[in-house]
């Protein structure tokens, strides 16, 4: 009996030891992944799994922001940007051993553009009605012809994970560095190293270096940070400034500030003509002088310093400096000057008397800013804006609403005066935000779904956005979009406030992490991440 017990203990110890010796990267998903089908990915968690498991023809290098060959060794654009021909990599196999051929690419693209599938990934490819024509030229050569030219076409394939046409495992057979080995709903997703992954490191060793990735599902940020401080997880992909600030004091070696991120925080005034707000307020909100005055009265530097503990940059316009190609560096930085603000207001007949600003009809200037409840940084920004605008005699009421109510007000009933929200920018190309800039767009928040542009400058933005979308000349596109940024910085339909920095938590035992601004900021080069052998005992 004793012998059996001792044997069991030894067996258990050896198994535990084997498990501990695995190079297993651990981090948290903040919600349940909704799907493992790459074509249907729409949420962050599913996107994480897709990125770690999916093999793509072209990968956008997150550091250089340039497309690089992956499963396609080369590609060629022709036919005025409508056709793309891929030369595929040979000898590649899926995680289950099924060979990768042009048939798999055709199968993936057919499924992706099938209207019945409703793939969010396919939206980027739809420049015009009609389905693309996909022709297999050889087992390693395929051509895809779209009904119309698609700007930045090659970069769009970064989102298209190739699915096997013949594997019995279908989308669970992976071409990426890992494959889904186990999934326990509500608990974790366990990814194992793809034994057939094609990529090799500098020394010729097959990648990835890691044996497994364990993605625990945990929505609570507090728990995430606590587990990180206890070395139970190795990465935090995006961290709030509050946590970052605390961690940088207690464990400076475990946090990284990668500089401005892609996302923007902005406020805007409701300019919808049919909005249920007083006509005189609508007149204020439509006045460029009024919007410029409000912008000048806001201290963006204080927002960066106080709300984000210095881990943010004052925004100049709609594009973050993190977007290297599309950012217009010629835009002047927004100036904080209450005197300029009052001069601009006086041009429109506003008067400051006894600390209160009134319009030319004698109405006291007062409006509300809505923002989403529970978002501490936005609540703080709104409170600081409230104090800044008080200095020019404007009374601001800060209203925090639950998200569904907020969306209903800004998107359906238009029953609001000003809003403070952020925009998450996943893609670099301005075509991804056409819906925001076109006056007919649903996301043209200050006055959406216009039949004809309400102002000459909106008509000009429409023209420039359409021009750049139809052009394949990157220089010409950039010129057009630079002009859009200039118009936006002058007219201020959105008053851009800050670009939050990309703040990461990275365990010192993890090597090869190169933080970048674009998603996934910490593990975009996951196949090259490895654990430091010297410090392995600390956190593995």
């Amino acid at each position: 009996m004793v012998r059996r017990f001792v044997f069991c203990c030894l067996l258990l110890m050896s198994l535990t030891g084997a498990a501990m010796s695995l190079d297993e990267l651990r981090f948290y998903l903040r919600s349940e992944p909704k799907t493992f089908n790459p074509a249907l990915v729409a949420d962050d968690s599913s996107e994480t799994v897709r990125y770690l498991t999916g093999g793509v023809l072209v990968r956008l290098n997150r550091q250089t922001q340039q497309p690089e060959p992956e499963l396609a060794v080369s590609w060629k654009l022709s036919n005025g940007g409508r056709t793309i021909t891929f030369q595929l990599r040979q000898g590649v196999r899926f995680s289950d051993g099924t060979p990768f051929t042009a048939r798999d690419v055709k199968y993936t693209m057919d499924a992706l553009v099938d209207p019945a599938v409703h793939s969010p990934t396919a939206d980027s490819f739809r420049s015009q009605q009609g389905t693309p024509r996909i022709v297999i030229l050889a087992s390693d050569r395929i051509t895809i012809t779209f009904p119309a030219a698609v700007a930045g076409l090659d970069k769009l394939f970064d989102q298209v994970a190739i699915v096997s046409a013949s594997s019995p495992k279908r989308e669970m057979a992976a071409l990426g560095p890992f494959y889904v080995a186990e999934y326990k709903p509500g608990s974790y997703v366990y990814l194992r190293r793809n034994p057939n992954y094609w990529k090799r490191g500098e020394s010729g060793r097959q990648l990835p270096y890691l044996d497994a990735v364990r993605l625990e599902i945990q929505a609570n940020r507090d728990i995430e940070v606590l587990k990180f401080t206890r070395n139970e997880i190795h990465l935090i992909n995006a961290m709030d400034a509050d946590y970052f600030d605390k961690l940088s004091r207690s464990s400076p070696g475990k946090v990284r500030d990668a500089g401005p991120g892609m996302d923007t925080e902005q406020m805007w005034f409701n300019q919808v003509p049919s909005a249920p707000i007083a006509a005189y307020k609508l007149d204020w909100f439509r006045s460029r002088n009024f919007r410029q005055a409000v912008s000048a009265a806001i201290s963006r530097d204080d927002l960066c310093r106080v709300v984000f503990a210095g881990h943010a940059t004052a925004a100049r316009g709609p594009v973050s400096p993190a977007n290297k190609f599309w950012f217009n560096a010629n835009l002047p930085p927004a100036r904080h000057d209450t005197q300029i603000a009052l001069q601009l207001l006086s041009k429109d007949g506003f008067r400051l008397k006894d600390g209160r600003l009134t319009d030319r009809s004698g109405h006291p200037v007062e409006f509300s800013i809505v923002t989403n409840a529970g978002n501490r940084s936005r609540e703080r920004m709104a409170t600081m804006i409230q104090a800044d605008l008080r200095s020019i005699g404007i009374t601001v009421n800060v209203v925090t609403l639950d998200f569904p109510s907020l969306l209903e007000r800004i998107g359906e009933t238009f029953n609001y005066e000003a809003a403070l929200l952020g925009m998450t920018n996943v893609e670099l190309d301005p075509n991804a935000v056409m819906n925001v800039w076109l006056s007919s767009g649903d996301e043209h928040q200050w006055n959406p779904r216009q039949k004809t542009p309400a102002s000459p400058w909106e008509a000009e933005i429409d023209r420039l956005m359409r021009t750049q979308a139809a052009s394949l000349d990157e220089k010409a596109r950039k010129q057009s979009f630079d002009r859009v940024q200039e118009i936006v910085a002058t007219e201020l339909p959105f008053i851009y406030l800050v670009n939050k920095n990309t703040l990461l938590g990275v365990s010192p035992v993890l090597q090869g992490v190169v933080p970048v601004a674009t998603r996934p900021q910490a593990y975009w080069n996951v196949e090259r991440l490895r654990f430091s052998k010297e410090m392995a005992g600390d956190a593995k």
Partner: protein
Amino acid sequence: MKAVRITAVVLASLIVMLSLVGSLLPQFDYCLQDRQNFSAQPSPQHWLGTDALGRDRLARLLHGTRVSLLLAPAAAALSMVLAFLFGAVPGFAGGAGERIAKVLIDLMLSIPWLFLLLMVRALLPLNTSPVVSATITFAMLGLLGWGVPARVMLARARALREAEFVLSARAVGISRARLLSVHVAPNLLPVVAAQFWIAVPVFILAEANLSLLGLGVSEPMPSLGSLLAEMEGLLTVRGDFGCFAAPLVLLLMVGSLQVVAYDWEVS
């Protein structure tokens, strides 16, 4: 027990006095943002330090306590009036009225009040001043919080309906209205008072819950709830001793009120 009661009364009175007097002093400006000195530790300039926007924590605590201590009892009083109308009156009257009241109370207790509050809050006009928004928040709590005291009052009123002194009074021909106002109501008073003292801390905590969701009293006005909301993250409050003052005051206040309420019930 007497010493505990006296301590509780003294503590509650002290908190009320300090919040009322302190919040009126000009040096305690609750919305002044010292942006060069945010998230500061306690100092001679800021006794409890400053919050994330550089506002003096002591000033915000004094004002927040005043807001909560003025509005929570008002909301509790509103609740008691409703509880008396929907609990005590039908309980004493009996018959169909009592049955309808019971259904109504059960209905009230089964409503997920948090969602109802969220809904009502979303329907409110946006341009309400912080004072009005605070009043509305507590008024909503008062309007929705009468279920439990109504059930207690209904049970007590029903028991009084069968009491000998009530039966005797009815036998000599006293009208129901006079019976209720002169004989029953004074007997219900200890129950009402006990329920009132229970409701006050409940409403303070309910407002704290709403503030944690960002739906309590609007900025820049503080309340005990919004001050508690600053402690949302365990890591962010680590080493930040000033932010513990609000829960301490709330604890002392609620504890004192509970002792007073218990005393009322016993008496």
